[in-house]
């Protein structure tokens, strides 16, 4: 047994070594005091302030951008970006959704791919060649990237990388960390971030204000509900359940919609659970949320055929599966920027009395 532990210890040190070496430079704050601070209210991934007429945007710990409209001096440690930008490349449908809402498809010159993409205008542009496909993360086609001639590229950094080749070309990479936000409104608020880059700040602010008020109003109503059903989420694949944690975006939406997610710790945003663990947590949950891409009509029979143990859950037996098919619904194109619609779908299921009669869900419906 000692040998086994030794292996784990070695592995652990290796991991630590890697994570330490990746820390970036700290921001440099030698510039004059900020004139005004305009930090987002819900989003935690970026911060904004104006200083001597320069818009300073800090993304995470390591990225600092100075948005300028004229040729002015900028503080050390910041990367200059001339706004409004004319050309850009998006890496995720979350980013693309920001451009769609702001009516700025003209700015988008490149995408990673068009799988599960519904927006007709975008598809047409890809077909015409006005938008190019640059390939998957980790395997970008640098020539296509250069051909799109972007001012900046919005990236969504994960472990697979492949950004070095693009960096070499001198194009500014701007991380769009919306996907890391744990609060649905925080994720939606990244539209303001994109708005600043493309010179549509006012539109973005107005749009977000509408989302915010509708979301909070509905949340208020749901919090007053007398019953709070419990929900489980996801599907088991090959004996493992990749479950979203209690700290996740989705868990937050469940809470805001007046329900409780079965994993109640606030620590993790996602973990792999064995069947038995998930089952012991969720066997008696009232509802079961499933989001997948299923060709054709999803049903309880399909759910059982995919994994015979699915029928053991109470939500299955009582036909309380909340379902959204990404093949039929533009889920990732709309839900991140309009979480109020998502919230309303859930409220309509958990507390039907709180929404108008005859409500037509946008994404999720109760599987018959």
């Amino acid at each position, binding site marked *: 047994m000692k040998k086994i532990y030794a292996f784990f210890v070695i592995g652990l040190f290796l991991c630590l070594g890697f994570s330490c070496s990746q820390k970036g430079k700290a921001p440099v704050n030698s510039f004059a005091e900020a004139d005004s601070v305009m930090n987002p209210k819900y989003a935690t991934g970026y911060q904004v302030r104006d200083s001597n007429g320069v818009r300073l945007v800090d993304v995470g710990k390591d990225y600092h951008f100075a948005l300028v409209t004229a040729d002015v001096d900028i503080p050390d440690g910041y990367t200059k970006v001339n706004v409004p930008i004319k050309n850009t490349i998006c890496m995720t449908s979350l980013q693309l959704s920001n451009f769609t809402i702001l009516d700025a498809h003209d700015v988008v010159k490149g995408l990673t791919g068009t799988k599960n993409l519904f927006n007709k205008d975008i598809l047409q542009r890809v077909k015409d060649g006005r938008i190019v496909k640059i390939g998957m993360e980790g395997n970008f086609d640098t020539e296509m990237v250069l051909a799109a001639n972007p001012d900046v590229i919005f990236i969504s950094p994960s472990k697979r990388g492949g950004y070095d080749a693009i960096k070499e070309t001198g194009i500014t990479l701007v991380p769009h960390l919306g996907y890391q936000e744990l609060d649905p409104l925080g994720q939606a608020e990244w539209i303001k971030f994109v708005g600043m880059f493309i010179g549509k700040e006012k539109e973005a602010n107005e749009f977000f204000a509408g989302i915010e008020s509708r979301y909070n109003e509905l949340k208020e109503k749901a919090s007053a509900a007398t019953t709070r059903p419990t929900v489980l989420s996801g599907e088991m694949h090959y004996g*493992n359940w990749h479950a979203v944690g209690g700290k996740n975006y989705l868990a937050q939406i469940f809470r805001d919609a007046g329900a409780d997610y079965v994993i109640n710790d606030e620590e993790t945003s996602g973990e792999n659970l064995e069947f038995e663990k998930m089952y012991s947590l969720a066997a008696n949950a009232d509802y079961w949320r499933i989001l997948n891409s299923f*060709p054709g009509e999803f049903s309880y029979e399909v759910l059982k055929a995919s994994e015979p143990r699915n029928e053991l859950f109470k939500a299955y037996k009582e036909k309380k599966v909340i379902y959204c098919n990404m093949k039929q619904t533009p889920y990732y194109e709309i839900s991140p920027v309009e979480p109020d619609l998502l919230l309303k779908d859930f409220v309509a299921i958990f507390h039907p009395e709180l929404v108008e009669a005859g409500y037509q869900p946008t994404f999720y419906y109760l599987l018959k």
Partner: protein
Amino acid sequence: MIVILVVAIVVLTIVNLLLGSVDIPLKNVCRILFGDTSESEIWQNIIWKSRLPQALTAIVAGAGLAVSGLQMQTVFRNPLAGPSVLGISNGSALGVAFVVLLSGRIGGVALSRLGYLGDAAMSVAAIVGALAVMMLIVWIAQKVKGNVTLLIIGVMIGYLANAIIGVLKFLSPEEDVKAFVVWGLGSFSRVSGDEMILFVVLMCILLPLACLLVKPMNLLLLGDRYAANLGLNIRRARMLVIVSSGVLVAIVTAYCGPIMFIGLAVPHLARAIFRTSDHRILMPATALCGAALALVCNFIARMPGFEGALPVNSVTALVGAPVIAAVLFRRHRDEIGE
């Protein structure tokens, strides 16, 4: 020795039933196992529908892979041979890759619906892929004489399958690639219900059948000329052993994904423990060692603490490699002076 192994397997099975990411007290587990239905329904389902199928799957899969590895090592008289050496596991991976990665492209809806329903469709694809490669190998085995030639052709087929998988992966969207990668991690826990029963029954038929081949295998060890002089039809014997080994791997891979290492290493473990190369002993010994090692790995992968079950493939080598290296080292360290 065999008795000790059987006892070890029984003990390990019980350990596998007792421990998991959900805490169920010992006495409740016992009551459930003795058919007491007054226990919590959740616990009953965990024991009967999760832990027991997993333990049984591990036992038969471990035994099957180990026996298959032994057969390959004997036929090719090569200690580094294993179930994957003839490209048979690559063949099944290719089958699965076709279902998972190409489901959206070829045949459209029909095939990908199958892909969804399927864990079953994947099993079929894996078996078809593995058997196709095996038929090819058998056909080649009839044409070429040398074992080494056959071995090299097998390895080349494996590379070829891998290359095609690589191209498919490259052309596929990320989610599909991920599904395929997850399949490739191997797992004893994906089989349950009727499928598990079918799997166990199949293996319970195939393993004894494999044991019928011990005599020709013993003769093959003597070398082709000797064996032929003793009246063995070498070509036929070679083919039977390859088919038996291939079918075992195909079925295990179909249900558990490609499980590495056990097939290659366990025969060495069995030889070191039993100090014999007589297949009449070695065959059952290898099967039992394989089952025991698979149970140990399954238990370690699911030890409380790493909730969420580590991939079996990482554990088999991580745990198995040092153990087997240590056993071989202790048995053979003094031989250098002899």
